[in-house]
């Protein structure tokens, strides 16, 4: 569309802002969710209260948090980033917990038998094996985050969301279409990046594997890491 080309500088500006506003919550959300998830697996009693808390953040409309935060963080990006971080975290923590719990017991036992300490087991065995489930959660959280940033436009900080409210105010569907196309493209691109990351980080899943084979491959991979000379 010629309008889009003519206004490409403006569109690029909002696209950049949108990227920033959606990536930061994912980053921070992950940084919080991974240790929190690990803790909930280690200390089982912690999981029910944490799950309740994350459910609340999942259901809490970010819009409500914006006004609460304006008094503290003013009209800055943080006013949007903080609620979205809480939302991302609420999606990711259950996935981290699920992922860690899905590590097959034989693998865990094999690692223990090989003399892996708890921390080493966590970092070298359990976390890597949890990656597929965690990335599944990351994909949902990323797409949701990108979509939710547009709501920040109701306090003027919404990236591509600007195109929606301005399009409504000026009765200008073209602008709204542009926003929708760019936002969906951004989300699909981010999703693709995560899929590639998953492939790179899980070498034992390359090639076509049936579910049962994964356990065998995991143990084999584990063994290969401690090969003696």
């Amino acid at each position: 569309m010629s309008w889009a080309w003519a206004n490409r500088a403006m569109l690029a500006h909002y696209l950049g802002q949108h990227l920033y506003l959606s990536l930061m919550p994912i980053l921070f959300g992950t940084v919080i969710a991974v240790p929190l998830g690990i803790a909930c697996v280690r200390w089982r009693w912690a999981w029910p209260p944490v799950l309740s808390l994350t459910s609340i953040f999942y259901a809490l409309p970010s819009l409500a948090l914006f006004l609460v935060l304006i008094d503290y963080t003013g009209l800055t990006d943080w006013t949007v980033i903080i609620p979205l971080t809480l939302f991302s975290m609420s999606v990711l923590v259950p996935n981290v917990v699920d992922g860690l719990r899905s590590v097959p017991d034989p693998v865990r036992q094999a690692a223990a038998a090989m003399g892996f300490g708890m921390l080493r087991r966590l970092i070298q065995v359990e976390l890597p094996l949890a990656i597929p489930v965690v990335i599944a959660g990351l994909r949902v959280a990323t797409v949701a985050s990108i979509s939710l940033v547009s709501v920040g436009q109701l306090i003027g900080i919404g990236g591509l969301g600007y195109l929606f409210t301005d399009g409504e105010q000026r009765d200008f569907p073209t602008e709204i279409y542009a926003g929708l196309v760019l936002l969906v493209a951004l989300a699909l691109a981010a999703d693709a990046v995560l899929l590639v990351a998953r492939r790179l980080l899980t070498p034992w899943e390359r090639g076509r594997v049936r579910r049962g084979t994964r356990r065998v491959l995991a143990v084999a991979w584990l063994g290969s890491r401690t090969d003696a000379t």
Partner: protein
Amino acid sequence: MSYFQIVWQWLTAAQQWHGSNGIPDRLVQHLEYTGIALAIATVIALPLGVAMGHARRGGFAIVSVANFGRALPTLGLLVLVYVLTSGSPASWLVPLAALAIPPILVNAYEGVLGVDPELTDAARGMGMSEWQILRKVEVPVALPLLLLGLRIAAIQVVATATIAAYIGLGGLGRYIIDGLASNEYNVVAGGAALVVLLALAVQAAFMLLRQLIVPQGLRHQTRSS
């Protein structure tokens, strides 16, 4: 005053419970938007997911549609449909239904797909038609995941229906958007608390439903959101 005190004061003020801007009216409107959108999404996504899971094909298409649906920003769709249809009910129906379809679709598909092939083989061996297999074997076994998809969708719609207030509609979002415009912290806080309470109530309702209709042996299955 702490957040809770502020919310409590607002919630218990008598005026909150009367009139067209009162909590009962807004709650009913909110449930209407949620219920109708959820119903339409279920009618579209549930049969589709179940059918494709039964046929064991279309997994890539389902995941792609779900991804695409999740990426669609509710505010954008809300505004677009409003402008294109001069404010018809489709303005809120389309975005909220679009939000609800992905979790229902994906979980229906995965639920039916995940039914142990031995069960369906046995059923075929006993001479059941495909339709009977679906009805008597696959759907009952997939029930936990079907319910999970509905529950996830319901909670997302309850939380997001607040945005409908942007185009002048009612519902609990009215408190949040009006409070935002007038810089009334207590109204926004109260509205948000009500939305969370409603979402928790919906969650509880689904848990109850699950207890009632899912047989004991099927209660543990992993989630797909």
